């Protein structure tokens, strides 16, 4: 018995090193592929990677700008996990961010003058409602008219984008704005900074909000009745339905909650870093958010961490475009290989584990293997 336990410990120890090894293999993929591409294009690969890392994390001010950049991406990524857990393909995160940003701007511009203690909640609620409404459209169409949510949420992205495109050119165009944007929100309508002066003043509470939301969604999914029902529908809709879960309600709720959170991502941009609404308010955040959620298997906490890493990377990459002249396309390739590396890591680990077991099985007596299993 004791002998077996020792064996089992050794066994799990080896499995741990398999995990480490597989991450190393993934890291090689992450560095090697873009490295070759960079070298071919005439850049010094290690210098580029070093620059990205140091621009993102190399100093206090670098870290501050990374956090500032990451907030909307992390929030939106948390929003993306909600519908995915229910088996609903909410590709409309981008549109929901844009609508949330619109809601936040309307509140921020037209309710300006309210005391801040009312104004900020109003902005928050408007952003969530606008984003949630945009999500519910997709959920409603899916459940009532049996339209593929994948297609209609995708198309709703364009509708949202062009609604804002129009609004910032005509009705909402700011009197003091240079381009097609709204006026910058007043200081009272902006989210509070973490520090009143210095480097950290550019970081606002939205980065904290992002991780609070991740924790809340984790709790919602894992520990509440609704979360259970959402997971059940995500795993097997007919069985959930026979079990009495109201599928329409679950789908529309997740689309609202996910959309509302994505909308808060839009708020974090308008009332946070950027300060005004423009047609490019959401950049490509919706797609980074979806990628982060899918790669982290829709688990809110890992998703938020991965989205933070993506945000840091984007911050770090901004610098190398300017200083080293690396084209932005190449920067995107580096990001894509990074995500690809994380995506294939479980597959590498599985293959390594299998190879290891096969090798070990050749040496060990099967009765002992059985003993371990018991």
């Amino acid at each position, binding site marked *: 018995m004791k002998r077996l336990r020792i064996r089992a410990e050794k066994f799990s120890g080896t499995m741990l090193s398999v995990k480490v090894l597989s991450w190393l293999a993934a890291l090689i993929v992450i560095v090697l592929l873009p490295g070759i591409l960079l070298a071919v294009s005439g850049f010094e690969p290690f210098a580029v990677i070093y620059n990205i890392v140091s621009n993102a994390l190399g100093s206090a001010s670098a870290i501050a700008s990374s956090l500032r950049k990451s907030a909307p991406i992390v929030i939106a990524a948390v929003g993306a996990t909600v519908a995915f857990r229910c088996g609903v393909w909410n590709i409309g995160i981008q549109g929901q961010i844009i609508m949330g940003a619109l809601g936040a701007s309307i509140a921020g511009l037209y309710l300006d003058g309210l005391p801040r203690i009312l104004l900020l909640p109003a902005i928050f609620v408007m952003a969530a409602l606008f984003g949630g409404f945009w999500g519910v459209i997709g959920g409603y169409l899916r459940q009532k008219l049996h339209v593929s949510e994948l297609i209609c949420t995708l198309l709703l992205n364009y509708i949202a984008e062009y609604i804002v495109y129009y609004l910032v050119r005509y009705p909402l165009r700011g009197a003091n704005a240079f381009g097609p944007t709204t006026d910058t929100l007043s200081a009272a309508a902006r989210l509070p900074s973490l520090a009143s002066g210095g480097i950290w003043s550019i970081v606002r509470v939205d980065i904290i909000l992002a991780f609070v939301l991740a924790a809340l969604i984790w709790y919602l999914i894992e520990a509440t009745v609704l979360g259970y029902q959402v997971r059940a529908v995500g795993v097997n809709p007919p*069985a959930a339905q026979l079990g009495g879960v109201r599928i329409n309600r679950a789908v529309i709720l997740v689309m609202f909650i996910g959309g509302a959170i994505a909308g808060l991502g839009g708020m974090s941009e308008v009332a946070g870093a950027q300060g005004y609404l423009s047609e490019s308010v959401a950049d490509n955040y919706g797609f980074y958010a979806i990628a982060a959620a899918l790669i982290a298997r829709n688990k809110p906490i890992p998703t938020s961490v991965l989205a933070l890493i993506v945000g840091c990377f984007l911050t770090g990459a901004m610098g190398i475009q300017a200083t080293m002249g690396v084209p932005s396309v190449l920067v995107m390739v580096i990001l894509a290989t990074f995500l690809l590396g994380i995506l294939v890591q479980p597959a590498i680990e599985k293959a390594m584990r299998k190879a290891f077991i096969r090798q070990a*099985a050749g040496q060990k007596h099967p009765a002992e*293997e059985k003993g371990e*299993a018991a």
Partner: protein
Amino acid sequence: MEISMRGIVKNFGKIVANNHIDLDLYPGEIHCLLGENGAGKSTLMHVLYGLYRADQGDIFINSERVRFRSPQDAIHLGIGMIAQHFNLIPRMTVKENITLGKMPRQERLGFLWDGKRAAEIVRELGETTGMVVDPDATVSELSVGVQQRVEVLKAIYLGAKVLILDEPTAVLAPQEVAELFAFMRRMAAQGDSLIIITHRLEEAMMCDRVTVLSAGGVVFRSMVADLTKEQLNRKMFEVCIREDGRECQAEAMTLPPVEAAKDSDCGEGNVLFQVSDLCVQGPTRASTLKDVSLEVNRGEIVGIAGVAGNGQAVFFNALTGLIPLQTGKIRLKGADRSGDTPKQRREAGISFISEDRKYLGLLLDMSLADNIILGYEDKPPFAKGKRLNYKRIKQFARGQIANFEIKAPTEEMRVGQLSGGNQQKVILARELSQGPDLIIVSQPTRGLDVRTTQFVRELLRENRDKGRGVLLISYDLEEILQTADRIAVFFEGRLWFVPRDASVEEIGRYMATGGKAGEAVAN
């Protein structure tokens, strides 16, 4: 073709499914694999068919070592398998399904499919095997028994010399079972060999050789000719002691003889559940319900027999509320439930045990604890307000694991990793634990071993004796005879009630032709 499997080992995580199994298959024999759920029969066959790769061990064909990377490799070498769930394309015709893997091409335009030739192939196969099927019929229109024939023909067309049949008789009527065995004999006479997985001793006795598996290992093998049914039964009984270290009664391993159905005292006030003039559209004409009426009293098991595909599945889904009724009423305890959702029906006191546990019964990717509260997750003690009380849920799950003797290391195990019998026990534990008034259950023992089957039927009778109503739908006539107090038969979407004193042969006639054979009146 001679096949030897040597020292086959297959692990799933910590579960040892096959532990050094040797198996030989000679040309011209029918080999029976017998054993309880989770004994490793299906796993072993999946290894032979190339669906799983063994962790250790070798397969030899005619003394030559072979390696299968996928079923394609196995098919290529002449091994075919008929799984429990068929791999047919429902919307395509029989000839398309059979020739899909190796399509006959037109002589001049080689890139075109030759439909006429395909139909001829199906007819020729029918002549050589005795399994006649209409080549132009659409698969979804066929009964389960005929679909199985299509699967068999498909395997033979692809050149199978060795045919693996995984519980082929579970869904067949008695006559169809006889036909299947007649076909198997013909195959064997030609020098082909067959492996059949079954739980039924009578079927094992119709084979040439039998291998009994238990807990992943071979515990017994013999020529059937050297055995009596009693001996084989005793062999399985010995297994029973060895396995859990406890003695179990020899009687428990055989199904008790068919008892005469008890007369339940069903007075007027005892009607629990009433279905009247139900019409529901089904996927085929035969399965569309036509004016189905039925009553279930308190303390009564109403058994619905019939060959699969005659409306049972549509009836079940209509009773759950998953599909809408065209006309007709459903009443529970006098209250109209016709328009209710599944949830409302469940809350009114009906519990459902579906025949398709993977599709309708379980959340395979979730834990045992999660599965055992599905449908009751928003009620105390599992929910505290809007939150789940996982402490109580796990406690409850552990209790049910003990109660139902579910073989699972912990309540956090994914249900998809359990064997079929244990999955069924999870469903039973869930559906029976919340004190329903009426239990609607379809095929509760499909694919279960003798002991679990007996346990399930006993459980249904226990619930009846507590004054609950049970509506039991089963394709297994023996199950109906053994369990039900009153029997009805589905034939082409109509429900025929069978007289109380009807013989097995008479009921068989109802199953084959509906009420036309007897003088019985509909409803």
